[in-house]
């Protein structure tokens, strides 16, 4: 028996050892469907990170829903009724946001994902060929700038409130966070409104300089261009009451000839791609969208979806009898619910900036600055009105243009910005009321003690 025993132990023990050595290598397991930062090596990798920024903008906590929806909910003066069961949206509609609420923290968080994505691109330009470096950097800065513009508007007092060197906006993070070692760079105090605006304008100007005029390939149509940068610049200048520059920026877009008002108002919405009128837009498909059941503009607005938002007859009463825009609404079978048709079909393209706004911006800015950049304000306004078969105006004041914006851009997220920049009231709340500013998320203050909460929370 002894030899067999020996024989077996001679075989078994080495076999066990060999097996365990082989196993040791088996502990190196790579992630199944993600990459780690070391795998960012080529220009294509950097470009892929950049393109994920558009996906981030499509998120419901960005342009996919909330940048647009919340600004209409928060600044609504009785034209819409929110009747949904989601408490977090009710709080926005009632101007009773909670600092521990999900919306303030989701919008904040998503914004910085986009910003960090852009910062990672900028930190990896060494992997990009010289020919493409400037363009890629410009595109990253475009994404970063438009996100900062939205965040600064929601979480801080508007530029119009003055005191821009003291009023606080959001932390200005311009370096990439891609490892735990970078985290301290994200723990910053809130930058002033002035500092944020300086950064936004610098970024957008660089984007306007270095981005292409347009993209010829269909797949790239939804990317930022020179003119999307100008379009956002016009918004930023309007917010600063810098009407001269605002008119010029809007005029650049109009004069480019790259865009045209679509023939019929309804053709601008529920499209599967960018329309001729869209300067910058979020595209969606059944596979890539901002949500179909708990999120998304259509989810909240459409009659056959959650139908959480109904439109007041007062809204419709504002339009002329012949105005097609006044007919762009849906009615439930018993007419008790009215909804806008702008957000009617799932997976439709979401216009972020469109040409009609540029005409109205140029008109208002020219009127307020007393300039005549591009065309006469009355022509600009009537161009927009004529498209929808509204009666042309005979004369136009700045307030008329603002009212025109409300008719044209209703439920597209413009309302909040009008209120803020022109210091208007929402019901009996002043434009700078504490409750018209988002709270800084409490969980953010918990991990970053240098943040100061907004008054009222």
């Amino acid at each position, binding site marked *: 028996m002894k030899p067999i025993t020996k024989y077996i132990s001679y075989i078994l023990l080495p076999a066990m050892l060999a097996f365990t050595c082989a196993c040791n290598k088996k502990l190196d397991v790579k992630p199944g469907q993600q990459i780690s930062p070391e795998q960012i090596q080529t220009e294509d990798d950097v470009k*892929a990170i950049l393109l994920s920024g558009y996906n981030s903008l499509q998120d419901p906590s960005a342009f996919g829903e909330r940048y647009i929806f919340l600004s209409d909910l928060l600044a609504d003066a009785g034209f819409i009724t929110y009747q949904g069961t989601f408490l977090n949206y009710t709080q926005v509609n009632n101007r009773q946001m909670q600092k521990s609420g999900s919306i303030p923290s989701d919008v904040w968080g998503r914004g910085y994902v986009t910003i960090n994505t852009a910062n990672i691109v900028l930190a990896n330009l060494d992997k990009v060929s010289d020919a493409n470096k400037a363009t890629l950097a410009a595109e990253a800065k475009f994404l970063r700038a438009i996100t900062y513009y939205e965040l600064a508007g929601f979480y801080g007092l508007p530029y119009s409130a003055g005191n821009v060197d003291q009023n606080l906006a959001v932390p200005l993070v311009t370096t990439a966070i891609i490892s735990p070692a*970078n985290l301290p*760079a994200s723990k910053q105090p809130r930058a002033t409104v002035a500092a944020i605006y300086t950064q936004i304008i610098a970024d957008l100007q660089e984007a306007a300089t270095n981005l292409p005029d347009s993209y010829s390939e269909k797949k790239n149509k939804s990317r930022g261009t020179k003119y999307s940068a100008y379009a956002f610049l016009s918004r930023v200048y309007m917010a600063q009451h810098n009407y001269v520059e605002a008119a010029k920026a809007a005029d650049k877009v109009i004069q480019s000839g790259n865009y045209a008002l679509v023939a019929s108002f309804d053709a601008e919405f529920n499209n599967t791609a960018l329309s001729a009128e869209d300067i910058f837009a979020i*595209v969606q498909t059944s596979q890539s969208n901002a949500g179909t059941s708990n999120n998304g503009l259509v989810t909240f607005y459409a009659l056959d979806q959650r139908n959480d938002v109904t439109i007041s007859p007062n809204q419709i009463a504002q339009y002329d009898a012949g105005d097609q825009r006044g007919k762009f609404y849906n009615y439930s079978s018993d007419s008790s619910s009215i909804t806008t048709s702008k957000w009617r079909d799932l997976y439709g393209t979401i216009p972020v900036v469109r040409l009609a706004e540029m005409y109205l911006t140029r008109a208002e800015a020219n009127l307020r600055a007393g300039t005549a950049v591009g065309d006469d304000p009355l022509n600009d306004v009537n161009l927009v009105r004529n498209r929808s078969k509204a009666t042309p105006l005979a004369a136009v004041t700045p307030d008329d243009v603002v009212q025109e914006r409300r008719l044209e851009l209703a439920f597209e997220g413009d309302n909040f910005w009008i209120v803020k920049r022109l210091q208007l009231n929402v019901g009996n709340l002043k434009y700078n009321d504490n409750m018209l500013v988002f709270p800084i998320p409490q969980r953010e203050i918990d991990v970053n003690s240098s943040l100061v909460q907004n008054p009222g929370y």
Partner: protein
Amino acid sequence: MHRLYSIMSALMLISALSFAQAKRISGKVTDSKNGNELPGVTVKVKGTNTGTITQVNGNYELSIPGNATTLIFSFLGYADQEIEIGGRQSINVALGNGTKDISEVVVVGYGSQNKRELTGSVTKIAAKEIANQPVSSFESSIQGKAPGVVIESGSGKLGQGMKIRIRGTSSISASSQPLYVIDGMPVMSASMSTTDNDPTNPLVDINPNDIESVEILKDASAAAIYGARAANGVVLITTKKGKVGEGTRIELNINSSIAKPTMRRKFLDAQQYVTLIEETAVNDGKYDFAHQISGFATEAAAINYYKNRVEKRMTTLAGGNGWRTNAINTDWQDEEFRQTAHTNQIDLSATGGNEKTKYFASGSYSDQEAIVIVNRFKRYGARLNLEHTANSKLSFGVNMGITRSELNRISNDNAFSTPGQLVAQVPISRPYDSLGNPNPNTLYYNGLISKKYEYNRQVSFRTIGNAFLNYYFIPSLSFRSELGTDIYALNEDFYQGKQTQDGGGIGRGGNNITQNVILNTNNYFTFTPHINDSHNLSAVLGMSYLQNDQRGNSVSGENFPSDAVKNLGGAGTITGGSSNEQRYTFLSYFLRGNYNYKSKYLASFSIRTDGSSRFGPKNRYGWFPAGSLGWVLTEENFLKKSKVLNLLKIRASYGKTGNAEIGENNYYTLLSVTNYPMLPGFAPTQLGDPSLHWESTAQTDAGVEFGFFDNRLSGEIDYYNKQTSDLLLKTNVPLSSGFGSIYRNVGSMENKGIEILLNSKNIQTKQFTWTTSLNLAYNKNNVKSINGQIIESGVQRAVEGQPIGVFYMQRYAGVDPSNGDALYYTKDGKKTNDYTQADRGVVGKSNPDWTGGFTNTFSYKGIDLSIFFTFVQGNQIFNQAGQYQSVGFGGGYDNQTIDQMNRWQKPGDVTNVPRLSHFFGNGNQYPSSQWIYDGSYIRLKQLTLGYNLPKSVLSTVKLNSARIFLAGYNLWTQTKYISDPEVNTNTLGNISGGLDFYTVPQAKTVTVGLNVKF
């Protein structure tokens, strides 16, 4: 050096002795009662020191001097037997007459041990406690039976994940579920189903009737042999094996059950609803006028306005004026629950074997209906456990079970479509229209539409099996190699017709296929040298490797032309398709030594090292040592003769175990693929700490085991102290980094507690026996440090200095008698009716202090009766749905609970229920302690009455035994909670628990069954 030589010469001497002698004798020792093999039996030549101990399979082999005449077989708890050798070379012995319950064999990791010599804390649950119950998974059967093991099924839905906590929750961000090991193989036990519904329980794939025993390893001494995965305790499941003797035994089990909810909630009926809703309108009119909100000229006008508004809505909801005449009075719970839920189970098995080959084979079928509509579970499967002994050195075999399980699911509790939310509908709405179709004009989406036009089904195929080989080099040294696999294939599909809410008017469907394959091998040596009678040593040394591969595909589609084709072949548009794969691995080495001196002084030591793919190369390996000591005082001379005391053992252990259950790749910083239309990209999605390592738990345990009066009274008491450090904590980082959190080893928490187990044989006569068993456990959890963070999960949180999962919310202060407003406490203890001024504080906790079970068993001739109670004490339940259903219509027109009848009506009323108000609720529709309840309960978990047919009858029908039984489950419950107290809508959370959100209550079941042995 000198010492080494002496050891070597001693070893040589032993081997010389082993091989030089002339006569060898071998055989097997079994239990005379049930044929089980008995390991650890001392076999000795009478009058000499020559002897050995039987192996795991009961075999022994011994070289004896030529002049040997008699062998003595002795084993604790059994009577010694002396056998004349005569001319035999093989002697098989069956030992009996023992007081078995204190000397049973307990399965431990990589071996088994005599309970009496065990120095760790292990609870064993035997087959009869598990078999033939109307449950889908065996954990339900052991609820309340093991001290310190808290089992929560969360709801009366079938196939759902179950929360198991052994000695408390020891983690915050990592899983706190125990490790499950079946026949030596760790198995997959975490839900693989989609995350948009409740987690399901993969352990339903195990047929409870196949289980021989469940051992729960609780302290470090017992569990540390499973090292990195043992911090939450280990549940060892041993399936039934073949037995030698008596030929083939066939056993048939049939049972059939009917079930209803344990209790139904009390909601307003139509008349009460209308009365209260009218009062609401009047209140709102008065309030509006008094506060001049809408500017009504008179109070009457204001009241009239609100009455009209409410009545218009009532007419819509009732589809006419039927609501005024009580023509409609729907109790929506009639629609939520089945009239009676049926369960039918059949199970057939065969056991047998001879010296060479033993087998256990079984087949089973189970079909269970949940008490709630739609939900149904079916399982069928088979098992074959086979072992063959080739010769005295080699044996091998397989243990293999295959199963198919099918679960028809309902939505999670937070969906309008789930049957649980039907109670939100108003009693003046009809559930069905005149044509028998679900009424689409209800207050909320009518979940009955989903019952008709929607399905969500998951089917799993599971093969859990292993092949093993035992080789005895010499009787005292054996090697065992096991190669096992757990192959799990899950197929989930759902369809939501156009008519349904989630079907969105176009119809939606989806299909997910997930495959999880575990490959595991254990290879270890067991060394049980016979030194002499006094010194008993055994040692285990080995290694283990586990590889888990998960792969999945999912496809979804929409735009179904009709309900005719419900699979994705009928989808006009495919909206999503994806696949994923992920592996994890564990490589481990382990060593254990058990020593005892004359079974009096016991010592055990183990050490395991684990390497895991879940951590970075530098932090991959962890060391998990444990040691324990025991002293059996009754083996000492001064107690040996005691007539009162049969057993007194004290033991203590200390050791370290780990937890790595945080999922894969958490030490990596990661970028994930994004799918923006035509512009695919990589988005930064996870920040990883490369220095991430194990969460470790150091546990101290001290216990005493005792038996008095001929073991009429026996039991054990344990104290434990579990200190978990380096928590794998999902710590928040500033969102301004672009990330939300990162896993870090931060913080510590503790669980301290005591466990008491008492067994008593109160009456023991030939005709009549009465036994009582009580188990009690107390656990106190404390989050010691989490870096000052507060980790929230809804209204619950983990916060330093508090037990995990405290309810943290606004404190309700009752009703202002002057105006009926809900009041809350402010920070300085004052009362306010302004919710936003209310202060938040700790108002309860979801984990109980005391848990336990109490069983009385009686038998008289062929009749047996068992009465089993379980109880928990010291926890709270938050009725999260209270803010919709117990809120005086503040949140909507939802039907309200009956307590709203006690509402405030006029100034001076003293009540706890605020004024009814639909339009001017004063904040009482937000979370507050108004809906916190005492969650303690005691429940008659099981009542069984059985009758064994007498032998005289059996022999005429050629049966070995036949038993018929009638059992009731959850027949009676005492609780202050307003619904079933065994409730948790967030089934598996560490922080969240004790939440009721339209959750389906537990089932009250009556079972009749038959057990026949041929």
